[in-house]
């Protein structure tokens, strides 16, 4: 498999509650816009007019901002770009708006505008429209194992020469309803508003990059070990951000493996910090 490097990060939303925030915030290759939906909107207004943003809800604004920040932190115009967006639950706020319109006003009152924003590739579409990406765009929607498989897809895109760079990210919005669905999900305590994390992935050359993607592993077909069936969240935005723990010595540092799980299914993403001049 072709080795990949994570070159930069963009994080938008309630980032201060994320693991290792103190360790990684402020690094030049990591740009964050910390805060809730209001803060995200204010940050985005430095790039786009309010008129242009008026149709985007907080979920879409957060995704767009994180994507924009990741590209800014990358520092150069990306060449030959593909876009991959993972989401556990998709555009849940817009979906709920559409459901409300139907439940409150009947079939004839169901909102067509809300329906068009319930489509699960709406975040990727918004990013591609605002940033004018015309290359391959993939949306992945699953509450577990989304990132590991999507990283393999990014790897195959770059390996096969389809693109040279992949803007890879995740967005989710843990509203109160989601907490009812997954009461045991600890991470939901910190995400009242959407959170989005994006990275720029390229083929790895020498010491370039923030993190090196060492391996994406799935259990061997002959393995007998199976984790217990739980629905603990490993939502994509959480997983992508957790990879930054490799920069945090208190979390293990250097080389870490982040596990994605879903009801007894597992995968692991292993990354290593690429500190310039201090590579092991």
């Amino acid at each position, binding site marked *: 498999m072709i080795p990949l490097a994570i070159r930069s990060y963009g994080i938008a939303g309630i980032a201060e509650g994320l693991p290792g925030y103190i360790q990684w915030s402020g690094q030049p290759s990591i740009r964050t816009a910390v805060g809730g939906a209001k803060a995200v909107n204010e940050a985005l207004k430095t790039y786009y007019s309010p008129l242009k943003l008026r149709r985007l809800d907080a979920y879409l604004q957060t995704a767009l901002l994180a994507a924009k920040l990741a590209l800014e932190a990358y520092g150069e115009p990306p060449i030959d770009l593909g876009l991959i967006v993972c989401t556990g639950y998709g555009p849940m706020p817009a979906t709920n708006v559409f459901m409300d319109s139907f439940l409150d006003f009947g079939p004839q009152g169901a909102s067509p505008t809300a329906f068009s924003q319930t489509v699960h590739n709406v975040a990727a579409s918004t990013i591609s429209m605002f940033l*004018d990406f015309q290359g391959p765009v993939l949306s992945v929607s699953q509450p577990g194992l989304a990132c590991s498989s999507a990283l393999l897809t990014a790897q195959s895109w770059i390996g096969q020469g389809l693109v040279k760079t992949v803007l890879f990210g995740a967005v989710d919005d843990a509203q109160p309803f989601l907490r009812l*669905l997954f009461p045991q999900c600890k991470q939901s305590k910190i995400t009242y508003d959407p959170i989005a994390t994006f990275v720029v992935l390229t083929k790895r050359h020498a010491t370039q990059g923030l993190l090196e993607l060492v391996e994406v592993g799935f259990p061997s077909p002959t393995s007998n070990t199976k984790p217990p069936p739980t629905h603990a969240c490993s939502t994509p935005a959480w997983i992508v951000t957790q990879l930054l723990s490799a920069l945090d010595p208190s979390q293990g540092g250097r080389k870490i493996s982040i596990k994605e799980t879903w009801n007894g299914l597992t995968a692991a993403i292993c990354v290593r910090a690429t500190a310039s001049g201090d590579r092991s």
Partner: protein
Amino acid sequence: MPRTPALATVTGIGCVCAAGRSLEAVLDNLEANPPVPEPPKRFLEVVETPYPVFEVRDDLEPPADHGLALLLESALQAVATAGLAPKDLLCKCVGICIGSSVGFAVNYLPLYKAWHQGNALPKALLDVFRHSNYALSLKERLGLTGPCQLVANACASGTDSIGIGASWIASGMCDMVLAGGAESLSIVSYLGFSRLMIADTAPCRPFDRTRNGLNLGEGAALFLLEPAATPRPGLGYIRGYGSASDAFHLTAPHPAGRGLRRAMAEAMRQAAVTPREVAFINAHGTGTRDNDKVEGLVIRNLLPDIPVLATKGATGHTLGAAGAIEASITLGCLNRGTIPASHGFCKSDPEVGVNPTTHPVKLESRIALSDSLAFGGSNAVLVLEGKRK
């Protein structure tokens, strides 16, 4: 142009839709006995205007896991047509790549309705909802351990999932991949498309001058993909895959079809195929004014005089499953050496500029394209090769 190695060999195919419960049945019915859409039986009491649909099951209340059942049925068919049993997959790294337009929202409405009305969430509904993701659930049901991905590129999902599954094989990431799409008819999409005023109250007429919208359908189709060099007998090949975004509008295609052009060019470049070598294109052909106009423009520019097949007049628009069902039909037609008439097409539209088949056409090569356009500006194209001698 020298032929490049295929991305993957298709060793098994499963296909379930309103036109039939297997690929052979679908092909037979497209040729001789195409189904017609009817008002939806399962939520007729909710809707005022009965937009006709293509239902696989006509019972009033199909089980909550209806979509997953369609997917599982097509997965077992794919494995069986490859000459394997599900247990044969357990010792291999088998990936799952499933396209669906709904992602997490399968079975979401009943749960949300209970919450909306201030009721406690019934545990049974919660359990159904938590196990509704098609890709994860298929992986669980089959006990597989490889990569697992639910592609949610709206109506291009089925085409994209096969292209991505093939790229996993070509990259050596998996021994096998079950790739395709699944969709069950839901009140959410039914209301959404009718409220967007792009559903037809009559049987749909792809590319026809009088076309006035789509008919929704449901179904699933899966390919079992293996490496190009597999010694096992194959039913065909995935030769190329292209994907590109319009970057234009959430629900309207780019007027010049720029994403579709790019995806088609990329798929043909990857396959090292020229337009002269293409036997036909299985078009997306939804029957909506905008889609067919833009798709027609791109096809007549890039593939002039190539026969066009449009199958949604006999299957309905199965959204995230559509690309997979159409790829299955494409490969099936290549192996039969003929394509059927395109149901619903009658009157040529100069604005579209392409005329789908009105009678069976004998094929002159083993290579065909299948394309999809989607909300959000996603476009995907597959180049497929049959095994007919």
